[in-house]
């Protein structure tokens, strides 16, 4: 594409701006080209993926739109816009799968550890660690009992919070370590075994998000949102 060639060395931030301008003029293909060149340049961010998702959606490419939205969600797990667009895009795909209802506690817990991006949580845990250490040092050198006591308890709670945020971080990291994929072909037969001749269990269509359980040579084992499992070909799937 022309804009990519012409602006290969441009600043990513200005590329982002240009892409948004193109998007505003409804030239989605051009906008997509600019966004792609940002990602090709080794940079990414939630807004970039989100806008790529929007451009794909406008171009009618639902599976790509969902793929980019999911990528954006990984970088900004609590972004309301991304969630809303995922919901809307999901309502347009062929397969409507009832998700297994989550227990309210686990839903709450997910919302807790997804409340901030991983790096933000990391910074928060660092702040707790620093302030905990600071108060501990105050405790070491203070002479007056009141100061000693207060600083000791503050320090303890800071350390506790720091460890808790580290734990949350690890939960989020392990959540995203679970591999998900978007089906990119239509229709796709979900087979009972990783072999062409095996029984077809389900028929799914492009845009569906599946969990990747196992990756083989040409086949991947996937689990659908309703809990059904089966094997599909690697080529029919794109990992998030």
């Amino acid at each position, binding site marked *: 594409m022309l804009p990519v060639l012409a602006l290969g060395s441009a600043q*990513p*931030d200005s590329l*982002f*701006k240009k892409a*948004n301008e193109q*998007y505003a003029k409804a030239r989605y293909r051009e906008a997509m080209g600019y966004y792609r060149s*940002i*990602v090709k340049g*080794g*940079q*990414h*961010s*939630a*807004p*970039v993926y*989100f*806008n790529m998702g*929007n*451009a794909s*959606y*406008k171009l009618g490419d639902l599976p790509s739109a969902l793929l980019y939205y999911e990528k954006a969600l990984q970088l900004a797990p609590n972004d309301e*816009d991304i969630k*809303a*667009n995922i919901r*809307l*895009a999901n309502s347009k795909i062929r397969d409507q799968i009832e998700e297994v209802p989550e227990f309210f506690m686990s839903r709450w817990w997910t919302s807790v550890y997804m409340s901030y991006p*991983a*790096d933000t*949580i*990391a*910074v928060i*845990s*660092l702040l707790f*660690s*620093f302030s*905990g*250490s*600071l108060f*501990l*040092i105050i405790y*070491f*050198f203070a002479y007056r009992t009141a100061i000693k006591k207060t600083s000791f308890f503050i320090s303890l709670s800071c350390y506790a919070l*720091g460890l808790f945020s*580290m734990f949350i*971080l690890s939960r989020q*990291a392990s959540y995203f370590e679970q591999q998900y994929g978007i089906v990119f072909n239509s229709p796709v037969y979900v087979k009972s075994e990783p072999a062409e001749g095996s029984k077809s269990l389900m028929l799914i269509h492009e845009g569906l998000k599946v969990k990747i359980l196992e990756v083989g040579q040409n086949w991947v084992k996937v689990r659908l949102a309703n809990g059904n499992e089966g094997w599909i070909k690697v080529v029919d799937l794109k990992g998030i």
Partner: protein
Amino acid sequence: MSLKTGKSVMYKRISYIAMVLLFCTKLIFAQDLRFTAAVSSTQVATGEQFEVSFAVNGSGDRFTPPDFNGFQVLSGPNVSNSMTSINGNTTVSNAYSYILVAVKEGTITIGSASMVVNGRRLVTNPIKMTVLKGQPVQRNQNNSPQNAQDNSIADESPADLSKSLFLRAVADQTNVYQGQQVLLTYRLYTRVGIVDSRLDKLPDLTGFWSQDVKDNQQQAQWRVETYKGQKYNVADVRQSILFAEHSGNITIAPFEMTFIARVAAPSNDIMDQFFGSSYKDVKYNTKSPPLVIHVKPLPQNGKPAGFTGAVGNFTMTADPDKTELRANESLSYQVKVTGSGNIKLLKDLTVNFPPDFEKYDPKITDTITETAKGVSGTRLYSFLVIPRHQGDYTIDPLQFSYFNPVTGKYVVLAGKSFKIKVNKGTAESNVTAFSASGKEDVKILDKDIRYIKTGDADLSRTGYSFYRSIWYLLMFFAGPVACIAAFIYRNRERRNNSDVVKVKSRKAGKVASRHLAIAEKQLGNRNEFYEAIFKGLYGYLSDKLNISVAELNRESIGENLTARNIDPQLISQLLTTLDTCEMARYSPVTSMSEQEVLQQSKNIINRIEDEI
């Protein structure tokens, strides 16, 4: 004529003569042959039906009807045969009858019919008909009788039927805009007589929306037309008005018909040739060549915003039936679109009524006629709205746009805007459908994705995440490590401070110099000066040697300092200074001045500090 044919003609002639002779013996004497013509009435009015019958009391052949010039043949010839045998006397009679209708007024003669009976050619008497003025009868332009082709054309027997009997699909224009109307005519061209015809296949007009032209005449109308230099009898079989639904070259598939055509059969029979031509009925199937219509898309530039696909030439009026009414009463708003074009294909009009008006789908009434000139008429949209609240409202002017294919331009017609005054309704309380608070849910019109993020790109390196980097761990543990360092430092400090002796000895110099500083201020006050010096030295030594002041005396100082390897000279100097101080406190005479004592004390302390 060749010998062979001459011979065969000879044989035939002989056989005829023999036949005639054979029959003559019986029949000639049995009866006299009569061939008569009769009409049901000799005086008819135009448009009135009457019957002409030709009867022969014998079996004849080669019946040739007369020219029914001035009449139209409705049916015929209806042939009836009867044969009666009484006492061996066989009577055969044949009758040919026609139902005719008079077309022209005046006195018209029905000519003679001829027939060959028993080798004799018989003719009927012509009949004079008086035709009075009656109902008008439709006539062709060339005054030839209806439904009867001009015989002069059919005279010549064509060698190839496809040249003298064919179909054509003719469009009034083949280069049109999408949605523009095209008049398509299936035309039959013939130079032969047609006995019967049947429509086999009408093309499915894919790509068009079609509307048949309703013809109020049952019979095809014949006229003479010249096509490619030949004169033909031409009739329009069917007419349709087409509206192209998409652009491009659209082919109209062939249209098929089967005919039974009457063609003159060339005969070798000398008698046939002599007595006139003979006919042969031939079944003939033909189809029209395909016709291509070039459809142009409607131009994009200048396309009005609310264009709904109307193509043609229209006028529009829009009127409400009243401009003042009470709340909850109905108001009718009528939009009338009149003109020619694809009026039946008009999409629903959207009228911007005030949002407080309850509106219903419009009632659409079409009064449309399809003629060869095209589809034209009126479409009436009748919108029923009910204002629910009192107030002054405005109905925005309605815009109606259409494309005029003749000028190739879009035309926008705008109605007027109307002010509607809604007074307080009588039965406002009856409307329970509306909640008391007057609030309604926000109407969700459509769903769309949320708009892109236009703020900061907030870019980071792909694959890099801070929380996975070594820096995060290092920084996280930096705090505890600092704490441990601080802890170790504090403990060492504490340990140092807990060793009092060391501390005292370390601080002895400082304490002593403080005492000496006091002494320096007391220069002149003899007693205070020496006391300060003495205290300073004693205090210093007590701290330094870790001996309580009480136990401190000349001997203990000497021993301790010697034990610490202090220069004996320095020790004696110290002891001398101490003695001087002690003595000076009680006796006024001293060996050294105050200044000297101070200087010496400082020196001593400095030297002991250096050595211990």
